[in-house]
């Protein structure tokens, strides 16, 4: 985003002066940097040192005056992304090439970006908020940050479109139970996630992520489907089995692979990434059918054999969760922003998400990797659920705090 052409240098002068004023340094006058010398030994010690300092100072000023320059001539689409670089970078590059519109991305976590958006208020430069969780998007709606999107965009996804019409779903992930298949026999695992606390043999061998948004969404689903009391009982029953709490799924799945735990409540793609890497494998349409039987072991075994367990069809333990994006109120180019969302829902972009981060598409005509469970099968496993209920995150947080998990 920087160019070092002539006009940059000219334009940079303002900031340079701002800097100089700020620190009361006069760039043309070296009195500060070159100290007076009055004895022989003093001179000998002094000169190289002050030279070094002068060079450093000059470097500071030069670098900042060049770097300060922001490119403003062209209308740039600014995306605040809670989603990771692994997915976003390539998609943005793809979009840039297609439309030749300059796009730049600010990365962060959902909560960091939301906090920044709130503090920026109507001075925010952002056009699009692309979040990792529906919770963050709901919070953005509550704070009146998002705009209503046209039906042409909202009708595009085959499922999960929110009633508010203020954001579009971009990808889907599923809750699963990951397990170490050499220590746990999948036939011993319960048909429902609600039956998990009854498996006493798993004492001390379970991993979960109470502070992680996907887990909290899952608890919200348990609360609304099974009732508040059942959710509380489930949490208490689980805690009796002394589960290990991880802050996020990555260290948890590593712990599973390292044999520290034997089962883990997680999202489906963490297992896939562990086994197949985050690599951009070429994507083949509807080929691998019986690929779930992933029993063949990779030659150099770097960890315990980790497999995916799905609960019985329709169980809340198989809940589908969506990520999404919306256009911000502060955007001065809403049309371009909507066009970007439209692009995210294109078959190419959707298939890329499936291949690069192993998440499921939300539009009907995009395929997934052959080692992934086919879209329809995965959806059939997920319970019937009104996704607008996931907004009720506060009651879930209160419950988790009550049970000492947060």
């Amino acid at each position, binding site marked *: *985003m920087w160019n070092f052409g002539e006009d940059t240098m000219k334009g940079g002068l*303002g*900031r340079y002066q*701002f800097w100089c004023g700020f*620190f*009361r340094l006069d760039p043309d006058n070296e009195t500060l940097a070159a*100290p*007076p010398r009055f004895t*022989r*030994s*003093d001179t*000998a*010690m*002094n000169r190289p*040192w002050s030279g070094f300092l002068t060079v*450093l*100072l000059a470097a*500071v000023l030069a*670098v*900042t005056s060049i*770097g*300060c320059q922001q490119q403003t001539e062209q209308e740039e689409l600014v995306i605040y992304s809670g989603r*990771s*670089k*692994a997915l976003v970078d390539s998609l943005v590059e793809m979009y840039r090439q297609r439309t030749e519109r300059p796009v730049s*991305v*600010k*990365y*962060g*976590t*959902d*909560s960091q970006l*939301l*906090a*920044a958006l709130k*503090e*920026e208020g109507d*001075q925010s430069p952002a056009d699009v908020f692309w979040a990792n969780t529906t919770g963050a998007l709901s919070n953005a709606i509550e704070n009146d940050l998002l705009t209503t999107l046209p039906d042409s965009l909202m009708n595009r996804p085959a499922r999960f479109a929110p009633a508010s019409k203020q954001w579009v779903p971009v990808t889907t992930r599923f809750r699963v139970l990951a397990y170490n298949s050499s220590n746990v026999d999948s036939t011993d695992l319960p048909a429902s996630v609600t039956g998990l606390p009854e498996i006493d043999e798993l004492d001390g061998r379970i991993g979960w992520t109470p*502070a992680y948004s996907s887990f909290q969404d899952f608890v919200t689903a348990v609360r609304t489907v099974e009732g508040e009391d059942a959710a509380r009982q489930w949490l208490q029953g689980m805690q009796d089995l002394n589960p*290990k*709490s991880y*802050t996020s799924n*990555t*260290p948890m799945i*590593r*712990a599973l692979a*390292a*044999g*520290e735990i034997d089962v883990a409540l997680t999202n489906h793609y963490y297992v896939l*990434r*562990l086994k197949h*890497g*985050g690599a951009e494998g070429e994507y083949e349409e509807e080929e691998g059918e019986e690929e779930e039987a992933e029993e063949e072991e990779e030659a150099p075994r*770097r960890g*315990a054999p980790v497999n995916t367990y799905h609960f019985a069809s329709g169980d809340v333990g198989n809940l589908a969760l969506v990520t999404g994006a919306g256009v911000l109120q502060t955007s001065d180019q809403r049309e371009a922003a909507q066009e970007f969302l439209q692009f995210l829902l294109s078959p190419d972009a959707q298939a890329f998400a499936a291949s690069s*981060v192993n998440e499921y598409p939300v539009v009907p005509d995009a395929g997934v990797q052959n080692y992934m469970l086919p879209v329809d099968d995965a959806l059939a496993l997920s319970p019937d659920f009104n996704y607008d209920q996931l907004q009720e995150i506060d009651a879930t*947080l209160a419950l*988790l*705090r009550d049970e000492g998990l*947060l």
Partner: protein
Amino acid sequence: MTVRQVLESARERWYVAVPLAVVTAGVLIPLAYLLVRALQAEPGQLVDLVVRWRNVRLLGNTVALTAGVLVGTTLVAFPLAWLTTRSNLQGRGLLTLLGVLPLAVPGYVMAYVLLATTGQYGTLAQTMGVVLPRISGYEGAFLALTLGTYPYLYLNLRTALLGLDPSLEESARALGYSRWETFRRVILPQLRPAFLSGGLLIGLHVLGDFGVVSLMRYETFSYALYLQYAASYDRVYAACLALMLLALTGAILLLEARLLKGLLYHRAGSGTTRRAAPWSLGAWKPAGYAFAGTVGFLSVGLPVLTVGYWMADTAATGLPWASLGRSLWASVSASAPAAVLAALLALPVAYVGVRFPSKGAKAVERIAYLGYATPPLAFALALIVFTLGALPFAYQTLALLVVAYALHFMAEAVGPIRSALYQAPPNLEEAARSLGRTPLQAFWGVTVPLLRRGLLVSVAFVFLSAMKELPLTFLLSPIGFQTLALDAWSYANEAMFGEAAPFALTIMAFSALFVGLLLARETERTEQPEAVAG
């Protein structure tokens, strides 16, 4: 002093007054922001969040970890500092570099490395068949933090040891003290400012650490605060909790101030300080090498090897040179100016604190540490509000990021300069004044050269921290600005260690290069004064 006198001297010494004002403003703005936000809280829910047994337990964990790491770092840093300054070990320059480099390893990388090394399927088990229990919890957090932060103490101690006047020891020996007595009653007391400033940094670092404790699953106070914050998307309660953390920091700062009272360690006589003659280790030499080697291997070798091992997978498909180069430039263009700026700001803060130890001066110094202890996320949000309100044109510019780094990390720069100042005799400056120099000329021409070593260490500290920094960079950087640290974290967070590895390695390699160059300058210079003065 009356108010008028204060104003008068502030005008006369503007070169001290202006940076002090900047520092004070830079720290008080976030504090004011936090107070404003905290006051928006509903009292009922606030009480629920703050008054909980869980918080007491977390506080206990935090204190235990902080104390443990302080002991651990002392046990590592002190022998290493002594070996590299006062013994006759060969290759002390290299060992010194090894004592600094752990600062180039981001905390979460260290934690991931330790987790990946141990256990049934760890790299140790795979490559050598050695199965150690998978490290986590208190031990894991203790080990990762000790290995990652001991350089703060090491460098402070080293600066102090190099600046010690050997004639004091010689007199003590001549007057009949044994070596041990000399060490305990003459050398150790002189190292107190260094111990305190190094220990303070380490303590504050542990208090605020989130990366290591979260990966090691050891629940401390800051860990809980972060989770509350991330879970509820709420800046109001986050502000309340940040203030609680600051209160804890305040207690530590008071303690340090009490311990630091009335210290003066400069030479009173005439002439120049000589270098002490190195102690011969004799038969203990191999033990010295073994110790330094083990520390260096665990804190630097292990992370580099492990990250290299991760990279081996992806290296085959080609490294992302273009984005590595872009991110490296971004990292350096923010970190290098920030390091110099931080040292320039820290210089007057330390100077006033040591030479004019009034209550006000002490307050300014404490304030600098408060800025370090302010959770970076809160610090960044406060700067967003302030910049958009007062200097909207500076928002999301590199200049803002540089200033933010400098203000936040300035506390790291104060310690080494302060330690050096304690050893710089004020009467030299007074002599320069009497010979007709202005205060600025006297300060810059006489005192600053004596602080060279401290200044270099300060620049190195801040540079290394800024290279790894995440929350400030996330929120304040220009849009589209990608540093190495952001890249490494982004991939590692998605479990793509192969992709994260090149960025993590570049951080370490470039930091090593930069610090190596700084230290090379230092050794070059230390030889010279002797020749001139001799």
